[in-house]
């Protein structure tokens, strides 16, 4: 029985990995279902983020091939102690010209113990509830032009974007690195301090560390620049280790430095500054004090002083007060996989054609921030989602760090809102932005 419960709990997490909290950006899913009249439907679910998605549904009826576009939004909650996610369909529009008789949008229900969702087009009638025939995330190998043409007409912007995204459009292929951009000698330095050993959040920190390293390694590869990573984790998760890493960091003037903290955070009860203290302890037996607390603002200022072209410092941690005053007197420092389907021009605009500094953290003073073991920190996942959205082929706007960080903050806020996470309190990330176009 206990094993069953564990399996069920893990399935909840697996479902919710896809689900309410942390829907991956620009990922594609396929769902197949059959209605009571034995009509077979094949849906391509395109997810931008957890509040923006659509599905193309293809089916044959009255001897006609039909494709409908349905917009979706997600709602997550708990009832009778069970977690669920509902994707609510609306605004159905026929893509194919023939046989437009109307289409009742399907609502898709994911439950904690089901690997395939339920669907219904009529919440009034439980007899109309269908169990999907299959549901899966699509891999790059499964997507080709013929597959996309099942759902899109040849002149649709999203069809063209998806072709580019999945390397189908040969005219967009080019040798990497792009010889037109001066990438020679540029290095992306990724520093991650992640409390992977701590009991409560260690698993979520490990997950974020994997996602971040995969993402930025892919980005550096796409840009054709060098990549260097520095990990402070496990038993080596100490203030001294971070300081030693920062001391040994020598970025060039065209380099990019990205520092991400994943762990506990707090603020002293007499603290004035807005940025959190990073709790550099991997054991509860270690007491919080001067030797274990690291000011996020100190990290930012240290990195900024190293002279790299673009410096990004992110703190995914709480910013809530503990009942301990600052030991420092008079000074106030402060399952998802990388898919590498990047639009190189946007990637270059974001990482190679900008300079400056960005400091952001997951919560405002007094607030906690949230994570879960299946997916990671809400802020880190929102950052990765926003990053992918910003550099996606499917986005028409130019890539911009301010948009990215705004979307990160609003994404983490949405994930911690009652409609998505019933037990969470709102986290309102804060940031300091000073990024400009490179001359």
């Amino acid at each position: 029985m206990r094993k069953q419960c564990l399996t069920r709990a893990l399935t909840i997490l697996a479902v919710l990995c896809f689900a309410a909290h942390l829907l991956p950006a620009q990922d594609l899913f396929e769902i197949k279902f059959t209605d009571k009249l034995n009509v077979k439907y094949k849906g391509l679910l395109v997810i931008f983020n957890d509040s923006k998605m659509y599905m193309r549904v293809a089916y044959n009826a009255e001897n006609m091939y039909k494709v409908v576009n349905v917009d979706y939004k997600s709602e997550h909650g708990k009832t009778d102690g069970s977690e669920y996610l509902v994707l609510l369909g609306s605004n159905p529009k026929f893509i194919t010209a023939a046989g437009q008789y109307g289409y009742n949008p399907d609502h898709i229900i994911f439950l904690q113990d089901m690997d395939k969702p339920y669907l219904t087009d009529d919440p009034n009638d439980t007899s109309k509830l269908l169990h999907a025939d299959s549901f899966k995330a699509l891999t790059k190998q499964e997507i080709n032009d013929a597959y996309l043409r099942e759902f899109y007409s040849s002149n649709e912007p999203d069809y063209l974007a998806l072709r580019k995204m999945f390397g189908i459009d040969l005219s967009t292929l080019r040798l990497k690195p792009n010889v037109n951009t001066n990438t020679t000698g540029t290095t992306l330095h990724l520093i991650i301090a992640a409390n992977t050993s701590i009991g409560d959040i260690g698993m979520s920190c490990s997950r974020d560390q994997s996602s971040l390293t995969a993402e930025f390694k892919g980005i550096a590869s796409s840009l054709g620049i060098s990549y260097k990573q520095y990990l402070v984790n496990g038993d080596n998760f100490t203030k001294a280790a971070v300081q030693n890493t920062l001391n040994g960091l020598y970025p060039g003037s065209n380099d990019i430095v990205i520092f991400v903290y994943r762990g506990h955070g707090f603020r002293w009860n007499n603290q004035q500054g807005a940025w959190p203290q990073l709790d550099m302890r991997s054991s509860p037996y270690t007491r919080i004090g001067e030797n274990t607390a690291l000011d996020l603002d100190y990290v930012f200022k240290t990195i900024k002083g190293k002279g790299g072209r673009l410096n990004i410092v992110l703190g995914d941690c709480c910013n809530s007060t503990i009942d301990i005053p600052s030991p420092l007197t008079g000074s106030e420092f402060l399952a998802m996989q990388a898919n590498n389907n990047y639009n190189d021009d946007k990637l270059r605009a974001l990482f190679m054609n900008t300079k400056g500094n960005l400091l952001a953290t997951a919560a405002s003073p007094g607030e906690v921030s949230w994570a879960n073991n299946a997916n990671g920190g809400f802020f880190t996942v929102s950052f990765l989602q926003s990053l992918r959205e910003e550099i996606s082929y499917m986005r028409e706007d130019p890539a911009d760090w301010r948009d990215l960080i705004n979307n990160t903050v609003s994404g983490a806020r949405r994930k911690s809102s009652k409609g998505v996470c019933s037990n969470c309190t709102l986290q309102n990330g804060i940031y300091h932005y000073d990024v400009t176009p490179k001359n």
Partner: protein
Amino acid sequence: MPKLFMCLLSVVLLGSKSCSSKALGDFVNLLKTSDKVELFAVEAFPTAAQEQTLDATYVADYKVSEFIPTDPAEATALTLAAVDVKNFDLINVKNCPFMAKYALRFSKGKDRVTMVISPAPCGKARMIFASGAKERSLELTQENNLEAAIQKIVSKPLIK
């Protein structure tokens, strides 16, 4: 969420409730059947065994600052709150440091389980077994009954 969906969900969720009471783990049985419940106010951080002194009392390595007496009704309220799955978030965790304030020790014969509580805003609980071999972190929900039950006991007026 439209009400109609809730009805639909209740249909498809049938049969999924049986695990809820066991979701907290195998210590629940001991808590439910414990013959002794003790409440302590403790220091924020545990003290390693080699640093503990003989003139102090420790519960699961946390130095006791005060023993808080409870009557049978209060002990029952604490037990019920400690085993109620609704008081725990089994999915999400807060990224804040555990700052212990209270410890609940449940005993049945020689078996003991200690639940160390970090109150809001960083509401968490650590389940520590007497052997020291097992430990589990739990996330307290924002409006959990456990903290409320403790608060009710510690804030009652003393009869002198």
